[in-house]
């Protein structure tokens, strides 16, 4: 049994099955990878970002994150237009590991439908989702 880790899962975010978070702030809906995801991936070395102005679709890949262990798609939690991408990750991919909910943010979008967030997981539901996988 793996040593049980306490993953950070802030209350002000919503979560996907594929381990992205979304948080509504003054700019729009900000999206990143969860603490659990960055810990599983280990050291992130590259993040491929979409273009500002492009449209992302809920459930579809919008970017790629590469770590020393694996390459995985970033899946859009909700649909919308990309209004900002975190270009500084080109130089500092380690921010995804160091501060996944802060400096490690990946894109910010203008949500097509603000209520789409309701279909995503709460902190409590996501914690269960993480624990189920950690136990298997």
């Amino acid at each position, binding site marked *: 049994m*793996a040593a049980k880790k306490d993953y950070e899962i802030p209350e002000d975010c919503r979560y996907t099955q594929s381990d992205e978070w979304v948080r509504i702030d003054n700019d729009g809906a900000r999206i990143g990878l969860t603490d659990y995801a960055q810990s599983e991936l280990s*050291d992130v070395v590259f993040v491929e970002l979409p273009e500002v102005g492009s449209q992302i679709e809920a459930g579809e890949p919008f970017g790629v994150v*590469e770590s020393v*262990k694996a390459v995985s798609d970033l899946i859009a939690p909700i649909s919308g237009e990309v209004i900002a991408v975190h270009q500084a990750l080109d130089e500092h*991919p380690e921010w995804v590991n160091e501060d996944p909910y802060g400096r490690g943010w990946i894109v910010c979008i203008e949500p097509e439908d603000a209520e789409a967030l309701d279909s995503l997981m709460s902190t409590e539901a996501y914690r269960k989702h993480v624990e189920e996988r950690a136990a298997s």
Partner: protein
Amino acid sequence: MSGPGRSGLLFDESTLFERSRPGRTGVQVEPLPASVPLIDPQAIWGAEHVRDDIEGFPELSEFDVVRHFTRISQWNLGIDSAAYPLGSCTMKYNPKLNEVVAALAGFQSLHPLAPDEATQGILALGHALEQALIEISGLDRVTLQPAAGAQGEFVGMQLVQAYHRAHGGASRNEVIIPDTAHGTNPASAALSGMQVVEVKSGPDGTLTPEALAAVVGPRTSALMLTNPNTLGIFEHHVQDLANVIHEAGGLVYLDGANMNALLGVAKPGDMGVDVMHFNLHKTFSTPHGGGGPGSGPVAVRNLLAPYLPTPIIRKEGDRYRLDHEFPHSIGRVHAFYGNVGMWIRALAYIRSLGGTGLGEVTQMAVLNANYLLERLREHYGTAQTGRVMHECVLTDKLQQEHHVSTADIGKRLMDHGFHPPTIYFPLVIAGALMIEPTETESLDSLDGLADSLIAIAQEAKTDPEHVRAAPHRTFVRRVDEVRAARKPKLRWTPPERE
């Protein structure tokens, strides 16, 4: 008894740029006699066609270069020095007979532009290799042109698309790929402009016809199947899977990288496969892992034959010629004819083993993988309860409580004199250690590898810090993989410019 010795002499070695000394050369050329006129190339051909001098180009003797590469090769661990159980890569011994045959002057001195009349030998050899691969695959036609496995996949996808376009299926743009396929499969499909539809394997690690039936449709172009899959498990539903795809109007592509588990025993053509690639550099013992180039012939059913790359080798009576007139061909995919040197080695291997010998390759490869799995089962995590084919997958699950990871285990194995297995692949298994011993390792060698992995599992309990800091005995110790990926330094630059 073999294994890492107690002593040895390895050299620190600077780069060729640092070894350079002004005026040192490999050969000394006599000064030109006065009767030879000096010309100004720029005046004749124009400045744009004349290369500038290369600043900082190393100046070395031949002996400097030989010693340099010999010394750095001594830091290395390769198939000629140690077992190399790199899962999915089939790092088998490369018989030296292959090299003897490939070095025959008639092959080695051949010019690629020599006319057919002067190249009957190599054309006959190519044709014989095609025939052998047709027999092994149970398919109808072969192109030897693709440079390696991934290009073979790309060619396969191009052939499939050409077929669909010619049969009113231009809108078929979805390629179905199981989550246990090789990582190159989705890349090859995407590069061919197709949409990838991933389908999950069932509880026993194989794809079920039901799961496949749920994702096929009018846009289905092909299924890309790796069989045995990357868990080393035979896709036992393969014929039903092929039926589901064929009924939906699609074709079945087989990634033949794991042919070392089928060779001489089972034919992909009998399983309903329409198109596949071979990796001559895996299954047929041509060098790879730094020694290549690779070679990735593609075999097809007759229905795809009109689209094969040009030129193709035609046999007419007892003569051979290269046929360039092939109106529906997808075109050329390699300069000249392919990596011809690898055809020679692969045919030498096939002919020296014969049909029976090739079947024994498979039997021994499967036996060796199962032997290792059984010896290691108690000491590592594994999802594999039954028999595997030519490779097995272990995990670091039992080592996690000691904070020892798959990467650490791989690094520590080098201290025992073995190349690490493939790690963190397949992606469907967390912390995977994918081990493929191949048929060419002896029982002594397999036991050495198993004993070492068991010793590492013990050490993970008693001295985990030592495992985490491995390797301890290699010339180059643990490298900073994170910094190498984040801040890659891809070429040497003069110190003053840094």
